[in-house]
């Protein structure tokens, strides 16, 4: 699985993602935001960080980078695109995903481990997760408060496009377990076609026991499986 990891000025999880893709047996390659082409790759990942310092709105200025045209085209052809944290913000800003990520309702940066439910395990990013599986992984963001209008939210729910939700230890998505004020406790969503996913939590930080959790591994492995399967066809 050849994965393009895009580095924007201010990205700071690009290397973490690189290591993680290597760990699951993928073949990561960095792309610089000024590049105009992705080359031949099987998937694209937009890493976390503070592209352009999060100035204006998180992820907004990065969407003006030349590479984003190529990413849109890749997504348009059904190529898998994963955006994590700042990457999720970019996907929304670039209209590859609906809605927007507003400032956390606490107005504070929030860094901690959260519990997540897997809401849809029939996508290329989640097929290895059992439906009842509860995940633990870190979040670290100041603008992760997912917002979309009623209509869009209803549509996301109806079409099963909510991927992850923040939950409490009992598995319920409650206000108390919502770290940032996200609508419907949404932590991640996918596009209609099922090839573009964005999420605020960091699965790439939950891939080794020594880091406290390995719950992010199956996400990357799901994608890897999907890609090798589709190559065989």
């Amino acid at each position, binding site marked *: 699985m050849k994965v393009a990891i895009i580095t924007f000025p201010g990205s700071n999880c690009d290397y973490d993602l690189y290591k993680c893709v290597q760990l699951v047996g993928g073949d990561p390659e960095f792309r610089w935001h000024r590049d105009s082409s992705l080359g031949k790759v099987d998937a694209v990942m937009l890493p976390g960080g503070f592209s352009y310092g999060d100035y204006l709105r998180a992820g907004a200025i990065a969407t003006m980078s030349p590479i984003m045209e190529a990413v849109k085209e890749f997504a348009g052809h059904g190529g898998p695109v994963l955006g994590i944290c700042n990457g999720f913000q970019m996907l929304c800003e670039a209209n590859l995903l609906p809605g927007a990520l507003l400032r956390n309702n606490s107005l504070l940066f929030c860094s901690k481990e959260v519990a997540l439910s897997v809401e849809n395990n029939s996508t290329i990013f989640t097929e290895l997760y059992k439906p009842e599986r509860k995940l633990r992984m870190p979040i*670290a963001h100041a603008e992760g408060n997912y917002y979309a209008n009623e209509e869009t939210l209803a549509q996301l729910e109806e079409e099963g496009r909510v991927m992850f939700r923040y939950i409490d230890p009992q598995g319920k998505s409650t206000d108390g377990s919502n770290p940032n004020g996200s609508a419907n406790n949404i932590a991640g969503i996918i596009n209609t076609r099922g090839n573009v996913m964005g999420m605020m939590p960091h699965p790439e930080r939950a891939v080794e026991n020594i880091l406290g959790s390995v719950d992010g591994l199956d996400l990357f492995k799901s994608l890897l499986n999907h890609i090798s399967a589709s190559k065989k066809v």
Partner: protein
Amino acid sequence: MLSPQSRPGDPQITPELVSEHGLSPSEYQKIREILTREPSFTELGVFSAMWSEHCGYKNSKRMLKLLPTKAPWVIQGPGENAGVIDIGDDLALVFKIESHNHPSAVEPYQGAATGVGGILRDIFTMGARPIAILDSLRFGDLNSGRVRFLFSGVVQGVGDYGNCVGIPNIGGEVFFDKGYEDNPIVNAMCLGLMKRDSLIKGEAEGVGNLLVAVGTATGRDGIHGATFASEELSEDSQSSRPQVQVGDPFTEKLLLEASLELIHSGYITGIQDMGAAGITSSAAEMGGRSGNGVEINIDLVPVREPNMTPYEILLSESQERMLVVVKTGHLKKIQDILTKWELKADEIGCVTDDGLFRVTEGSRTVAAIPCLALTEGCPTYEREGKESSEIKNLRSKDLSHLKTRSSGYEEIFLDLLGSGNICSKRWLYQQYDTTVRTNTVIPPGADAGVIRLRENNKAIAATTDCNGRYVYLNPRMGTKAAVAEAARNLVSVGALPMAVTNNLNFGNPLKPEIYYQFREAVLGMSEACKLFETPVTGGNVSFYNETSGTPIYPTPVIGMVGIIDDTKYLTRPFFQESGDVILLLGNNTDELGGSEYIYVSEGLVAGEPPAVDLLAERQLQHSVLSMINQELLQSAHDLSEGGLACALAESALGNKTDPFGVDIILQDRLEPIPLFFGEAQGRILVSCAKNSSNQVLQTAKDHGVPCRLIGEVVPASNGFRIAGRTGNMELDIETMSNRFFNAIPTLMDKRKES
């Protein structure tokens, strides 16, 4: 010596002007002797900055010479941008601590943010990639609106900057006491990792090489910041202060990547952050260290504002700028690297052979001073030191009546758990990204933070410590306690203490009672660091932490780093399993001086702080490391503020989601108060599986360390029980947990007031 021409518009140099520049008449006389003429206005500014306390260490240098700085593993001791130690496998660890107290008192958010920015640059200009940040903070009482404003601003500033650059915060400390009401302490420490041979120094090597300014253009911000940091804050520093510096962590991240690429390119011979005193100090220090001279053409320096004078350009402290020495003929290549990172590089001068710091403007020379006169030539002083009789009285205060209390231990205990100095600091470190870079194996919340090294499966531990109350009451003993606590914190996670960086935060050194504290603190640190074989590789001095004549508690913050040989030895302070047994190493005593208990219950800072027996501390550390290396322990936790009861609570409450209870029986012939809450030094609390307890006891015995079994880890539902000979405590975990975790959030929820 070449004489600078006068510049139209420069003010006349008068005794008043000299004194406004923080120079004494005799210092001015010395300047005239060095130059063999009168200085120009620009030169006066340059001397003023370089001979300020901040850059020149005039009142501290002589004492600092007494610190131990050498060991076989020390690659770079004090004098460079940061210290460097060898950690094996061709790797080197770079680390340093830096203060930003004065800017933070005026503008907490930007002050703290730019403090983090500065310390990061100190690390990556050595050629190392920053891998962790720690922050050591002191504030007044959180019941004051102004203090809450300072606290929340500083925490956000530290957080936003490190988060944006993408360096995990792994620990630090925060201490609240009225003694810091108007003068918060903001010290930031950074660790970096590099291959040994990537080390690059801040030296202007190679006559003819180019001096190149990299990063942000120079503005009028922070002019005379170095001099400013060398003065007390007065009522009107709010209005007369120089413009604050604004941090731009986004540019910093680009600078970080670009600098590391530059260093690896081989096109440059030296690099230094333009920190305090900006271009002046970076150029003069680089010239001074190499023995060469430097020439700066002021017209070439990129500026942000029109009509800046040489004086302003030379003294500006605009952030996110670096000075780089580029090998001749390679300017284009380094510009290409910087352009890729969306940064600019401008040639502003060159390395010369005449030893001078020379500045030209058009055809005119505006300054020509020997580099060494600016650096090494700074006059140094040993001041008069005398202990304040007031503090002496406080120390000898009789506290024995506070030792007895026949009941109500539970209430006192809950008050302690909810005190700012003992409660959970989660509110604060949740604002810090602690997991970015995916190497943090012990995040904030433990005795020390730990970063694993992917390269060799070792790990680096770091901590900052200092109890300013102890130092206030007894500066020498208190500083030994700070070093000892730092070392205990490291061994508690399984690390061998290796080296120290320190930040000496004090009041006005011209006052004998302050200089006394300073001298005693340095002597205490020196003695402890020698004994623990943790040489001091660098640090920072921040004097004049006073508002309207009231100084802070003397606060010599110790930043210590250690190595864990294999990540399998990582040990945490939290109990792991019911049924494990709990053992205490070290002796309980009836000391209560300087304790959190007497502060919380009586509002007092008094008494003799707990005594430190350095030899016993060393034995204790060795014994715990030996237990950890035999893989005997389930947890280890150092005892500090709040004593045994609070340490037990911290280990039991853990990270809240799965707490435990304890069942403890103590046989000591001590009153319950000192037994539960006394802060005797040299103690560590450990837990282990029942069948390992004999080995633990034996290991302690082999090291001559007192150790006994005091109880057992039980399910949380069984509660928290401590039985002494003459008094007991029994509490439920829920109540304790609420006090411990909600103390700061509850206070911070009070709305902002001015």
